[in-house]
């Protein structure tokens, strides 16, 4: 039963990885690619580590440390790339001319 749940969560994680890879290929501009590359790999890694905990319960401390590390660092690095890309004015699909981060920075000056 434990092995069934382990492989179930591992394959759920792998499906999420594949969806993320397809999103990276198909999305039209940089920011939507960052969206595809930030959220679903985090969830996929945590699902895969959950499956590994079900398969090998004695490795739980190391695996939980790994999951916490991924959960802390992966959104941070994606946010750093997005902010740097916004700062160098990367072109993107903007249908309604709203850029709230730019307004905020100009209001501060």
């Amino acid at each position, binding site marked *: 039963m434990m092995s069934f749940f382990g492989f179930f969560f591992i394959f759920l994680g792998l499906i999420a990885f594949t969806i993320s890879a397809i999103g990276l*290929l198909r999305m039209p501009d940089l920011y939507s*690619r960052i969206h595809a*590359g930030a959220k679903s790999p985090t969830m996929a890694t945590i699902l895969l580590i959950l499956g590994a905990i079900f*398969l090998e319960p004695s490795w739980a401390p*190391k695996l939980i440390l790994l999951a916490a590390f991924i959960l802390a660092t992966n959104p941070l690095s994606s946010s750093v790339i997005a902010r740097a890309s916004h700062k160098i004015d990367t072109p993107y699909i903007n249908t309604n001319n709203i850029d709230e981060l730019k307004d905020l920075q100009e209001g501060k000056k």
Partner: protein
Amino acid sequence: MYEFASVFLLLAMSLTMIRFLKGPTLNDRVVAFDVLGIMALSLLVLLALYFQRSLYLDIALVLGAIGFLGTTIFGRYIEKGI
């Protein structure tokens, strides 16, 4: 079963590799590199389960730390130059 899972993950990695090779700007390549690092970390977890060695988990932790540092430094390089 682990073999099938690893091949599945390698398929996703090759799809990401296409974006890494094709990406029009540096930023796309950095995003694809970040995702590739996370996928390699997950592949190391699968390898640890396959060979029944918990040593690979330590390597996965170090790989995650180095990937995070690399992505952050690339972000700083995009923003300000060297």
